[in-house]
C-alpha cells in the first residue's frame, strides 16, 4: 500500500493554512467565542456549575467547631473508655459521707460510696447518689449577678469591697446566714472575714434542725454539741420520732451502724432490739421490733415516764411520780426500761423532738444508763448539725427591726424554708447589702443584689469535718463548668487575701491538721494520702463535756388539756427530698417515697380512721387550718393520702415541696393528647409546708400545731408506684386462710434460733428436672441475695441503678399510669397485727431466672440466656410485643412507652457511656449491671487472675448502706453469695412455679419472743 498517500479533510488542511492547523490542535476546533464580550456558553455553564456546587457545599458544611481537641495534651491516667475514681466527700447534705466519683472521659457520671470512709463505710443515700445530676443542671447560674444582671467577678469584687469598707466604719451588723458549715477551712475563712467588722456574726440554721439536742447538751453537759451516735454499739435502741435510718442527721452512717448490730449471717449472730415511738410511719419505724404510735405531744410524757423507771432502777429518786400519765401501757414501759437497764452502756435513747426539755430528759436517761462515751460520743462530737435556732430567732428579730447592714446567705433559702418566709422577704428589702452564694435563683437569691454562685461540689475543692477528728477532702472531678467561685474564695478576696480554694484548704490542713496526725512525716505525703483516700483521721479538738448537771432535768409536760382529741400537724422530711435543697433534681422527685410510694407530690397523710371520719380517700383535697401556734401559715389545701400506721390524731405533711426550682418540670415527660402535667395548679411540684413551721422558744418546731382538716370536694391525683399494699389478697379472692402470699417471708429471732428455716412457706427448691439443663453456666453463674432483714427501704439502690443504667425520668402522669421506669423497685407491704401496722420492704428487680418465662415467649429472640446465668435483653432486636413482660411473674420488665425526652443536652452528660440509651417501643430491665460484670472480668484478665468474689459489684449493691444486697458467682462455693444461699433464711420468691430465679432473699427477722411470728398479713 502506498504510504505517501495523503488524506485531508479540507482544502485549508491540504494547503497547510497555519491558523486552521492551530485551531485543529485544540480540543474543540470550532471557532471560540471567548473574548467576544458577554457570556459564553461555556463560561455560563462553568459559573452555573460553580454556583450550584458552592450552594451544595454550603449545605454540607457542619456547624462551626468550637473546640476541636479538648484534650490536646492527654491527661495522665485518662484512658478513653476506662473509668477513673476520685475519692471525695458528698455534699448532698451535711452528713459528709465519703464517696468515690466515677469519671468517664473527663466527666463524673456516678457517685459510689467510699468503702474505707470511717463514717459511711461505703454506703451512699439516694440524695447523695442523685447529687451528680445537679452538676449538669443547665439552669445553674454560670456567672455572678448584680441586681439580676450578668456581671463579672471583678465588678462584684469592686462593688462589694467598697460596701465592706463602708460597713467597717459603721456599727450596723454584718451577718452570714448559712446552713451547717462542715468545712473547717470555710469556717476559718468566714471567721477571718467577719473579724474585720466591728459587729459581725455568723448565724447557722439547719432547715432540718436538731438545735434542741445541742441546746440540751449545753444545759446538761456545758457544751453545745451534737453527740456522735454509735448505733453499732447499741444493743437496745429506743427512738422517739427520730427517723435515723431515713432522714435524721446522718442516715447512712446510722444505717451502717444499725445494720452492723443486726447481722444474722456471721459466726455469732446478733440482733439489736429496736423500739420506735413515733407519730407517723417512718422508714425507721418500718424496721422496728416494737413500734408505738403516739401524737408528738405525748413524746415528752413517755420520756418522763421512761426516765422515772430508769432512775428507779439506777437507785436515784425522782420526785416526779405524778408527772403526766404515759400513753403507753405501764407494763410495756417497764419492759422497755428493763431492756434498757439490762443493756446499760450498750443502749441508746434518742429523740427527734425539737423540744429542749424532752432532749434534756433524753440526755438524762442516756446518762443514767451510762451510754455517754459508749453509744453517744460527746467527747468527739458530730459536727453534722451546728444550727442554733435561738441565734436565728435573734437574727430574724434584727431583720425585722432593720438592724442588719449586710446579709450574706449561703446554702439556705430562708424565704422558702422558714415559717415567716413571706414577711422575711419584706424585711430583707431593708437590708442594704444582700449577697447570696446560691448557684440558682431561689426565692431568697432573687432578692439579693449580689448573687455570687458557688460551684457544685464535684467541680471545686473543699473539705469537711463531719465528726470531730474525721476530716475529709472534696476534690474537683471535672474542670469547672461555668464561671463560678467557691464561697471561701469570694470571702478571701473580699478580705484582701485572695487565694484559690485549693491553696486555702492546703494551708489550713498544713497548719491545723498536719500537726494533729501521727503517721506521715511530711505534709506533702499527708496531703497526697488524704486526697487519695478522701479522708484522714486526726486528733480531735473539742471542748471537754462537763459533769452531768442534774439541775437541768425537768419532767416534760403533757399536752394541754384542751388539745386532746384535735389533730396535730407533723411536718417531716421525705427520704428523697429532705428539706427541699434538691427539689430541682428529677431523679429525686420521681423516687417513690419508701413508705407511701408516692412520687412528685407532697400530701396530707391521714390515718385510715381519720380519713374515714373526714370521708376522704387518696387524692381528695383537704383544707388544713391551723388553730394554734405562731407560724405564718394558717391554712393550706393539700391532697389527702391515707397512711396506715399513723396515729389517728396526726396529719403529716412533707417539707421541701412547692419550691421555685420545680417550675422547670413544666414540660417533663412525654407530651401527648391525654397527657397530664407534672406540676400542680401552683405551677410547682407540691406545696411548700414550711409556713406551717413554728419558730418558738428558740427552736424550729416541726410538730405539734393543732390543726383542723376539712374535705373540699376537689381532687388532685397522686402518682403512686404501688396501688395494692398488702401481701394478702382481698378476702373474696381466696378461701379463708389462703389470703396471704408468701412473697415476703418473715420470722422472729426466737423462732430462728430454734429452727434456721423458721418462717418458710414449705416449698422446697431444687427439684430434679427431666431434661438436661437448658442453659449451663460453666464458668460464672451470677447471682444475688438480698437480706430483707437488713433492707430499710431507704431507696439508695433505686437511684444508684437509675444513675448507672441511664434510666429516664417519665414525669408524674406516667407514674400515675403505672409506667415508672425504675429497674429496681422496692415493694412495700403492710401487715396488721393487733392493730399495729408492720412494714416489709422487698427490693424487686429482674430475678434472672434460669427457666425464664420471658425468654420462651419472645418471637424474635430478643431476650436470651447468657452462659453466665444472665437473662439478657437485646434492645436492637426487640420489636416490642410486651409478651415477655406479661409473662414475667415478678413484673420487673419496663417498656419504653414513648421516646422519653432527653432534650437537655447538658443533663445528658451524666449518661453512662457503657449503657445503651433505649429508644421507644422496646423492652428493658435490670441487667445485673452487665457492664460492671464485663468491666470486672476485663480487669481480672488484665491482672491475669480469675474474678475474685467482690470484684464485681452491682450499682444497687455498691450504694446499699446496710449491705443488704450481695452479688457474686454461685459457681464459686466460697463466694459470699453462695454462703448466703446456704443460709436457713434463704428463699426464692415464687419457688413453686419453678422459674429458678438467680435472686434469692433472706427472711425478714424481727427481734421478738417466739410465738409472735404468725403474721396475719392483711
Amino acid at each position, binding site marked *: 500500500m502506498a504510504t505517501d498517500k495523503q488524506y485531508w479533510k479540507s482544502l485549508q488542511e491540504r494547503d497547510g493554512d497555519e491558523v486552521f492547523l492551530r485551531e485543529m490542535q485544540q480540543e474543540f476546533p470550532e471557532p471560540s467565542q471567548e473574548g467576544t464580550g458577554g457570556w459564553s456558553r461555556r463560561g455560563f455553564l462553568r459559573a452555573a456549575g460553580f454556583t450550584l456546587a458552592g450552594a451544595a457545599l454550603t449545605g454540607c458544611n457542619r456547624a462551626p467547631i468550637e473546640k476541636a481537641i479538648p484534650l490536646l495534651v492527654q491527661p495522665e491516667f485518662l484512658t478513653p473508655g476506662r473509668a477513673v475514681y476520685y475519692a471525695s466527700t458528698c455534699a448532698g447534705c451535711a452528713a459528709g459521707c465519703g464517696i468515690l466519683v466515677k469519671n468517664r472521659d473527663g466527666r463524673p457520671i456516678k457517685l459510689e460510696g467510699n468503702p474505707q470512709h470511717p463514717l459511711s463505710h461505703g454506703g451512699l443515700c439516694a440524695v447523695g447518689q442523685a447529687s451528680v445530676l445537679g452538676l449538669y443542671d443547665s439552669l445553674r447560674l454560670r456567672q455572678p449577678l448584680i441586681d439580676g444582671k450578668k456581671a463579672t467577678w471583678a465588678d462584684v469584687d469592686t462593688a462589694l469591697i467598697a460596701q465592706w469598707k463602708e460597713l467597717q466604719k459603721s456599727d450596723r451588723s454584718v451577718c452570714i446566714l448559712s446552713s451547717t458549715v462542715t468545712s473547717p477551712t470555710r469556717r476559718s475563712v468566714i471567721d477571718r472575714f467577719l473579724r474585720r467588722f466591728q459587729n459581725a456574726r455568723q448565724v447557722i440554721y439547719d432547715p432540718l434542725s436538731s438545735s434542741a439536742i445541742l441546746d440540751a447538751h449545753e444545759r446538761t453537759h456545758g457544751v453545745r454539741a451534737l453527740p456522735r451516735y454509735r448505733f453499732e454499739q447499741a444493743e437496745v435502741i429506743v427512738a422517739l420520732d427520730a427517723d435515723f435510718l431515713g432522714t435524721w442527721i446522718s442516715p447512712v452512717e446510722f444505717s451502717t451502724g444499725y445494720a452492723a448490730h443486726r447481722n444474722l449471717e456471721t459466726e455469732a449472730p446478733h440482733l439489736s432490739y429496736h423500739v420506735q415511738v413515733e407519730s407517723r410511719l417512718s422508714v425507721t419505724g418500718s424496721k422496728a421490733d416494737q413500734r408505738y404510735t403516739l401524737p408528738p405531744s405525748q413524746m415528752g410524757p413517755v420520756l418522763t415516764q421512761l426516765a422515772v423507771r430508769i432512775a428507779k432502777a439506777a437507785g436515784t429518786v425522782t420526785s416526779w411520780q405524778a408527772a403526766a400519765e404515759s400513753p403507753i401501757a405501764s407494763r410495756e414501759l417497764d419492759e422497755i426500761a428493763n431492756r434498757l437497764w439490762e443493756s446499760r452502756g450498750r443502749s441508746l435513747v434518742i429523740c427527734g423532738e425539737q423540744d429542749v426539755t424532752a432532749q434534756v430528759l433524753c440526755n438524762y436517761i442516756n446518762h443514767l444508763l451510762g451510754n455517754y462515751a459508749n453509744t453517744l460520743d460527746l467527747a468527739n462530737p458530730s459536727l453534722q448539725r451546728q444550727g442554733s435556732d435561738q441565734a436565728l430567732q435573734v437574727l430574724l428579730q434584727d431583720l425585722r427591726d432593720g438592724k442588719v447592714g449586710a446579709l450574706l446567705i449561703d446554702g439556705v433559702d430562708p424565704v422558702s424554708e422558714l415559717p415567716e418566709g413571706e414577711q422575711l422577704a419584706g424585711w430583707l428589702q431593708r437590708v442594704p447589702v444582700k449577697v447570696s452564694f446560691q448557684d440558682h435563683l431561689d426565692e431568697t437569691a432573687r432578692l439579693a443584689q449580689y448573687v455570687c454562685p458557688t460551684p457544685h461540689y464535684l467541680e471545686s475543692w473543699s473539705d469537711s469535718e463531719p465528726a470531730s477528728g474525721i476530716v475529709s477532702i472534696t476534690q474537683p472531678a471535672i474542670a469547672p463548668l461555668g464561671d463560678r467561685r467557691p464561697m471561701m474564695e469570694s470571702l478571701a478576696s473580699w478580705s484582701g487575701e485572695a487565694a484559690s480554694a485549693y491553696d486555702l484548704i492546703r494551708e489550713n490542713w498544713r497548719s491545723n491538721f498536719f500537726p494533729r496526725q501521727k503517721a506521715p512525716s511530711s505534709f506533702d505525703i499527708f496531703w497526697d494520702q488524704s486526697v487519695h483516700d478522701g479522708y484522714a483521721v486526726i486528733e480531735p479538738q473539742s471542748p471537754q463535756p462537763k459533769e452531768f448537771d442534774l439541775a437541768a432535768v425537768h419532767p416534760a409536760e403533757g399536752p394541754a388539756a384542751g388539745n386532746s382529741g384535735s389533730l396535730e400537724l407533723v411536718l417531716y422530711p421525705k427520704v428523697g427530698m429532705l428539706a427541699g435543697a434538691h427539689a430541682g433534681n428529677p431523679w429525686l422527685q420521681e423516687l417513690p417515697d419508701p413508705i407511701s410510694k408516692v412520687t412528685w407530690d407532697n400530701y396530707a397523710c391521714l390515718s385510715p380512721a381519720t380519713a374515714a371520719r373526714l370521708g376522704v380517700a387518696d387524692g381528695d383535697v383537704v383544707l388544713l387550718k391551723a388553730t394554734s401556734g405562731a407560724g405564718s401559715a394558717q391554712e393550706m389545701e393539700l391532697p389527702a393520702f391515707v397512711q396506715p400506721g399513723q396515729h389517728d390524731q396526726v396529719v403529716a405533711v412533707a417539707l421541701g415541696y412547692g419550691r421555685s426550682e420545680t417550675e422547670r418540670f413544666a414540660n417533663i415527660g412525654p407530651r401527648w393528647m391525654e397527657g397530664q402535667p407534672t406540676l400542680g395548679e401552683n405551677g410547682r411540684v407540691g406545696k411548700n409546708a414550711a409556713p406551717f413551721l413554728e419558730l418558738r422558744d428558740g427552736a424550729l418546731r416541726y410538730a405539734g400545731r393543732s390543726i383542723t382538716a376539712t374535705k373540699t370536694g376537689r381532687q388532685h391525683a397522686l402518682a403512686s408506684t404501688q396501688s*395494692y399494699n398488702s401481701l394478702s389478697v382481698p378476702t373474696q*379472692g*381466696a378461701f379463708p386462710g389462703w389470703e396471704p402470699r408468701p412473697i415476703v417471708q418473715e420470722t422472729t429471732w426466737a423462732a430462728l434460733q430454734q429452727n434456721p428455716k423458721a418462717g418458710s412457706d414449705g416449698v422446697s427448691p431444687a427439684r430434679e428436672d427431666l431434661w438436661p439443663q437448658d442453659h449451663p453456666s460453666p464458668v460464672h453463674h451470677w447471682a444475688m441475695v438480698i437480706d430483707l432483714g437488713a433492707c430499710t427501704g431507704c431507696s439508695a439502690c433505686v437511684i444508684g441503678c437509675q444513675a448507672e443504667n441511664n434510666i429516664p425520668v417519665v414525669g408524674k402522669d406516667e407514674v400515675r399510669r403505672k409506667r415508672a421506669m425504675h429497674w429496681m*423497685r422496692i415493694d412495700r407491704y403492710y401487715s396488721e397485727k393487733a392493730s399495729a401496722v408492720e412494714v416489709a420492704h422487698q427490693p424487686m428487680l429482674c430475678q434472672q431466672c434460669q427457666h425464664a418465662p420471658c425468654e420462651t415467649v419472645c*418471637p*424474635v429472640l430478643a431476650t436470651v440466656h447468657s452462659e453466665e446465668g444472665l437473662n439478657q435483653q437485646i434492645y436492637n432486636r426487640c420489636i416490642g410485643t410486651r*409478651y415477655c413482660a406479661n409473662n414475667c411473674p415478678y413484673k420487673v420488665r419496663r417498656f419504653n412507652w414513648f421516646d422519653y425526652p432527653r432534650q437537655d443536652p447538658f443533663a445528658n452528660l451524666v449518661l453512662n457511656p457503657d449503657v445503651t440509651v433505649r429508644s421507644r417501643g*422496646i423492652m428493658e430491665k435490670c441487667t445485673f449491671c452487665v457492664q460492671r460484670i464485663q468491666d470486672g472480668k476485663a480487669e481480672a484478665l488484665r491482672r491475669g487472675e480469675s474474678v475474685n468474689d467482690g470484684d464485681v459489684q452491682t450499682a444497687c449493691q455498691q450504694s446499699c448502706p446496710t449491705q443488704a444486697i450481695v452479688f457474686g458467682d454461685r459457681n464459686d462455693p466460697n463466694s459470699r453469695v453462695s454462703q448466703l444461699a446456704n443460709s436457713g433464711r434463704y428463699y426464692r420468691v415464687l419457688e413453686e412455679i419453678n422459674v429458678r430465679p438467680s435472686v434469692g432473699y433472706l427472711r425478714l427477722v424481727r427481734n421478738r419472743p417466739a410465738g409472735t411470728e404468725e403474721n396475719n398479713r392483711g
Partner: protein
Amino acid sequence: MASTEIGWQTPLIQGSKRLSQVTQDVCEPLERKASAWWWIGFLISLSVLMVGLAAIGYQILTGIGTWGLNTTVGWAFDITNFVFWIGIGHAGTLISAILFLLRQRWRTSVNRSAEAMTLIAVMCAGLFPLIHMGRPWLAYWVFPYPNFRGPLWINFRSPLAWDAFAISTYFIISLLFWYLGLVPDLATLRDRSEPGLRRSLFSFFSLGWNGSYRTWQRYETVYILLAGLATPLVVSVHTIVSMDFATSVVPGWHSTIFPPYFVAGAIFSGMAMVLLLMIVVRKTMHLEDYITHRHVDVMARIILATSGMVGLAYLTELFSALYSGNPYEQFAFLNRALGPFAWGYWIMVSCNVVIPQLFWFRGVRSHLGVVSLICVLVNVGMWFERFVIIVTSLHRDYLPSSWASYSPTSIELATLAGSFGLFFTLFFVFCRFLPVIAMGEVKGVLSYGTNQEESHHES
C-alpha cells in the same frame, strides 16, 4: 310463609326459582347503581375506618403510651380485638369447609358471604398484632427469612411466632378457598357484562372458565381438596391463638382447656356474626328467598350448641381452678368474678351463656329482630370474654405490689371502632362488587327439576 314450621323437608331455596332466575336475582344488584342505603352505610363505615386510621397513625408516630396499658397490663384492647376478630373469622371456614364435607346443603346460601367475612375478619385481626408492637416497622422479623444478621433465626418456641404462621396460613387458605368458589360465578358475571373494564376484570379473574364438564369436574376436585385442607385450620388457628395464653405462666392464662374452649368460642361468635350479616343482607339485597328462615334457624341452633360449650368451658375452668389447690389460680378466677372487673365477667356470662338459651324457643329463633339482637349481644359477650381473660388475669397476677388497673384511652377506643369500620367498609365493597350468594352452588340445591317442585310452590 312457613316460617314457624321449619323442618328438614323445608326447601332450602324458596320461590321455585328457575336457574336463570337465580342468576338474575344474585347478579342484578351488582349491575344496577348502588342504592342510597348502600352509600350511607358505606360512607359511615368508611368514616369510622378513617377515625381508626388516624388513631393508629397517631399511635405509631407517638408511641404505644397513647394506649392505656401499663407495666402490669401489657396487653388489653389490642390482643382482645385480635382474638375477637380471629374468632369471628372461624364461622366462615366452618361453614365453607366442614359443613361442605359434612354435606350440609343449606350452607350454599351463606357460604360465600361467610367466607368473605372470614377474610375481612382476618384482615382486621391481623392489624392488631402488627400495631401492638412497639416497633411495628420491624414486624417482618417474626418471619424466618434468610438474613445477614448472623443469620438470626426466630424463636420457634414462642407462641407469637406460631401465631404468625397460623394466621398467614389461615389467610392464604381462606383466600384461595373463597376465590376458587368465586370462579364460576365470576364467569357468570363476565358473561353478563358489557365489554369494558368490568368485563376484562371478570374475565381475568374467572381464569378462562368455560363451564364445560371437565372444568366443573376439576373445580369440584380442587374444591373438596381445599375444603379438606381448610378443615384442620378451623381447629388449629384458634388453638394456636389460645396458646398465646395457655403456654404462659400467668394465672388465668396457664390452662390446658384453652384450645377447645377458644375454638368453641370462635365458632360461637363467628356464627353469630354471620347470622347477623345474613339477616341484614337478605333484607337489604332482597334475598329472602335464598337466605330463608330455615337458614336462620339452623345457625341459631349452632349458636345455642356452641354457647353450651362455652358455658361448659367457663364452669370447667372455674372448677379446675378451685379444685387445683393453687391459690394463685383460684385467686385469678375469683378475681374475675368478684374483683374490680367483675362487671366484665358478668357481661360475658350473661351474653354468652344466659341470653343464647332463648334460642331453645322456636318463636325466638324465627323472630329476626330478636335473633339479630341476640347475635349482637353474643358478639359483645365474646369481646368481653377475651377482655376478661387478658386484662383481669394480667392486672392482678403474682406479686400484689404490681397489681394495677387498666382503662382504655380514646386512641384505643378509636382503634377498636376503626377495626369495625374496616370490617364493614370491606363488607360493603364485597356486597357491591361480588355475588353474595354462590350461584353455582345454590343452583345445585334448588328443588328445580325435581318432582317436589310443584308441592312446594307456595308463597
